[in-house]
């Protein structure tokens, strides 16, 4: 049942409006007022989105047909189950990242804070648009807006390294975006519709298999680049030069999730399981995803820079989602959608921990963190807990989703994928546990006065993701316990939520039920 309402539009408009407000008035008002805009927008957007959940759970859809976007096509925003999952996650995490951002950029004395917060809000608006888009053109518009809004964040430091990674990011995303563009034109001319339909509107056999496969990959590349499926992941590690909250945004909240969500929309809402497997595209995609899961774990092990290691972990975890979708089993699709949630909470905790460590002590290389847990016990406890979750241990959010994907693969008889999933879980332990081990183990990183160590750490290894804001690293933690509260509280909250979701996946707003509803609609009640 459809409910015509402007609420979905409101959810998209609030952050975009906030972005404009911040852009125009941000440099004229006090920073506190500016941040108040961000937080108000974040809270009200979350409220709007969460207020729609009960009706969606009851099987209804809010639809907003705003105006004609192009001849014959509406700007449609619709709250289907899958979209709601993504929208809920993005909006809820925006509150936490905002709080964390404020702590981080102030602790780190970042420049250009106005532009930073404006772009952040624009990113979230685009992400909400992506989640709620009702047809391909609307989706594409917000997808490209997300690319544009993320670019200033990636290139935030505006030095040569930031420029290079900004260029790389644009190169990857714009090229794939243009391929996506060609594909949606093709789809529109061929099928005369662009509305997302659970189970897809492209019928198997309506086009030559080879051509359909080409079409499939033209569209998938658009999503796969943002989701970082190998070999299209190149931009993600180099985007590490951006400030840590941006990495959290990229990895957990909006950008890579938007890529994974794009894959979901294309495979399940445009092609549908039947056509996707008929043309052979889904099979190939699954192999790429499985290869990425394994390879990225191996690469991650060899990274000493904390953020780089986490980046490759993201590459792998996102491919879980892609694999879950490409396996095309009902359970795996539900698992994939829920993994968007699970990974969001897990990875954001990891990144916020990494950022907190960096701001507090100036350390970014894992090998230098020996004994750091004595100084930052809370941070590292969260880090350790969440690492287990990434590996998929029971009682953590990651377990539920991975179990579902595994079950789906079992049902489809894809034993290799099952093996890959299990192997990757173990590999995840091998690259995340050493961090915990080093931090809780011997070493004097915890004892040396913070600011001195910050400088030392800086001189020792300037090669990676830091080296900005010279000599300012130590400011946050001259004394006191652990990281600044603005950073510590959000990361503890996300860690706790990750545990709660692991014990009771339906806690709060029934995200697991939503994921199952979506999967059921896609596979026409196959669960």
């Amino acid at each position, binding site marked *: 049942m459809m409910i015509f309402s402007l609420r979905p539009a409101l959810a998209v408009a609030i952050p975009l409006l906030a972005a404009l407000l911040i852009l125009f008035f941000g440099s004229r008002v006090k920073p506190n007022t500016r941040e108040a805009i961000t937080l108000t927008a974040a809270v009200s957007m979350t409220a709007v989105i969460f207020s729609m959940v009960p009706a969606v759970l009851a099987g209804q859809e809010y639809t907003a047909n705003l*105006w*004609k*976007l*192009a*001849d*014959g*096509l509406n700007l449609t925003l619709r709250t289907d189950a899958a979209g709601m999952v993504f929208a809920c996650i993005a909006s809820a995490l925006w509150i936490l990242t905002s709080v964390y951002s404020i702590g981080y950029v102030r602790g780190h004395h970042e420049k250009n804070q106005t532009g930073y917060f404006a772009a952040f809000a624009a990113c979230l608006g685009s992400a909400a648009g992506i989640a709620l888009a009702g047809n391909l*053109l609307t989706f*594409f*518009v917000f997808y*490209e*807006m997300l690319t*544009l809004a993320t670019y*200033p964040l990636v*290139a935030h430091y*505006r*030095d040569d390294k*930031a*420029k290079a990674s*900004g*260029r790389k990011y*644009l190169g990857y995303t*714009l*090229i794939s975006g*243009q*391929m996506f*563009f*060609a594909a949606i*034109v*093709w789809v*529109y*001319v061929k099928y005369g519709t662009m509305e997302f339909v659970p189970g897809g509107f492209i019928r198997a056999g309506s086009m030559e298999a080879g051509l359909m496969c080409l079409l499939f990959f033209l569209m998938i590349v658009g999503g796969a680049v943002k989701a970082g499926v190998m070999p299209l992941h190149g931009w993600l590690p180099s985007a590490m030069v951006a400030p840590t909250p941006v990495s959290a945004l990229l990895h957990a909240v909006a950008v890579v999730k938007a890529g994974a969500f794009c894959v979901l929309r294309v495979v399940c809402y445009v092609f549908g399981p039947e056509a996707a497997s008929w043309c052979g595209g889904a099979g190939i995609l699954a192999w790429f995803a499985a290869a990425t899961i394994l390879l990225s774990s191996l690469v991650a092990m060899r990274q000493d820079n904390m953020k780089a290691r986490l980046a490759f972990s993201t590459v792998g975890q996102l491919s879980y989602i892609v694999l879950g979708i490409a396996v095309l089993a009902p359970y795996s699709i539900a698992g994939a959608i829920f993994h968007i949630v699970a990974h969001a909470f897990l990875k954001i905790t990891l990144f916020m921990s990494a950022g907190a460590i960096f701001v507090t002590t100036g350390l970014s290389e894992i090998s230098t963190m020996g004994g750091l847990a004595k100084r930052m016990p809370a941070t590292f406890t969260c880090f350790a807990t969440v690492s287990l979750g990434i590996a998929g241990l029971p009682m953590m959010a990651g377990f539920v989703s991975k179990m579902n994907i595994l079950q789906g693969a079992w049902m489809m008889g894809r034993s290799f994928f099952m093996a890959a999933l299990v192997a990757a879980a173990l590999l995840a332990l091998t690259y995340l546990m050493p961090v915990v081990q080093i931090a809780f183990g011997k070493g004097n990183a915890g004892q040396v006065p913070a600011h001195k160590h910050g400088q030392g750490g800086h001189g020792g290894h300037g090669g990676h993701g830091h080296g900005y804001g010279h000599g300012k690293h130590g400011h946050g933690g001259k004394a006191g316990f652990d990281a600044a509260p603005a950073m510590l509280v959000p990361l503890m909250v996300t860690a706790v939520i990750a545990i709660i979701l692991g014990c009771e996946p339906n806690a709060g707003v029934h995200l697991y039920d939503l994921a199952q509803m979506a999967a059921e609609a896609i596979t026409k009640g196959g669960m």
Partner: protein
Amino acid sequence: MINIMAHLPVLVIALPLCGAVLCPLVSWHHAAAGKRMVMTCLFLSLVCAVTQLAGIIRTGEPVHYYLGGWHPPYGIEFVVDGVNGAVIVLVAAISWMTSLYSSPFERANPRKWFQSTGYYCLISFLAVGLLGMSTTGDAFNLYVFMEITAISGYGLIAIGEEKGPIAAFRYLMAGTIGASMYLLGVGFLYAATGTLNMADLAAHLESAHSGNLIVLAAACMIVGFGIKMALFPLHGWQPAAHSYAHPSADPMIAGIMIKVPAYGMLRFFYCVFRDAGPVMDLFFDVIGILGICGILYGSLKALRYSTYNKILAFSSIGQVGYIAVGFAIGNVYGLAGAVLHILSHAFMKTGLFYTSGALKYKYGVHVTDDFGQVYRKMPQTSLTLIICALSMIGLPPFAGFFSKWYLALGAIQNGQWYFVAVLIVSSLLSAIYFFRIIEKLFMNRATVAEGEPSHGGHEPLRKAAEEHENFGRVHIMARKKHHFDGHSELPWQMMVPLALAALAIIGLGLGNAWLVGEVLKPTLMEVFLA
């Protein structure tokens, strides 16, 4: 009482004409009066154009106006339908915006009576020529308006920078060849049919026997319009002309002076040659290939320059290729995309040249390497630059994306996937050169916009400009120093056109469905593809 509404088609042209003619007389008495009169006339013309378009949309019927009451085929006829109604509004709007935009330049750079008056005269005449070209339904009348446009254009280019006269002279050579070729084509058509009215021509050509003559005429027309619209490989005059024209007139020259001939080509081929046997096949092939080559050439060439105006000029060659590709696609969506691109690209290029002029006005910079951190001092200008640039690349939700969307839609409907491939490649190439500019604007070290905002004062700026002069690559405007000490970044006369251009791009982007669905598509179906 005379019914003004019935005379709108001619009023749109007559008002700027009056302004142009009376401007010298009026300003003889009061220096600024002529300028104001030209602005007023152009604004009234814009009002008339909008009213006229609104009437056409309401009634759904094209307006026919017979000059002097002489009915075709004997008299000159003005025909305004949805498509050229929109083009007329575009021309009138940009002319008015540019006339407003020009006045601070004059204050910064006080000229003698004759020059200042002459400038506004030329702007006004340029508007007359372009409006006439888009309104007229008579082939020879089109030639006359084409030459009015060209001559005023030569003047505006020549009073620009130091190289202006050379650029103007070369444009004069090329432009005259173009106009002569067009005239030759008209001669052939007249010889074959004995009429000059476009509608009448179309009717006669259907039954004309002299096929070769008509093909020859069509070839002449392609060359003629091709030179005027800077279609590859007939673009030779364009980069210099667009780079060295007077900075305040440049937006108009670059924005609409190459768009109106493109519209003329559309009108001629789809309304006159439509049924003339082999002509259209020839036209599709030639214009399609030239369009593709132009898109690739313009985009690649723009990569090689670091002078802002040169980049914009070469990008125009590519963008004209888009329009040509739209003509070559030739179905409803292809043509709608082409017309939408005429409109949207006019605003984008005008907006970009407004920013170029603003940067010259304030800092005298014209090399993109010197743009570092300028955005801190000129946030609104930079915002316009970004919006225009993103629209040029073809990113949603700006107007440029949607014209590309319709072009691609039309191309795929015809099975011409190669056009889509070219559009995509060109988008990516333009992304390279525009993001390079944006990157320099935001990330390069400050050169001219010296110092943080807290420093304030104009002293560092002047110093920077003087230092620059020593390096010998300072623009003529930097030497004639501006002395603008207002509170905003630029005088309001410049801010308003900048903002309007940006708003127009966003408006065209978000309102494209209405424009295409309600205005362009019905007209294209009834008039151009009937």
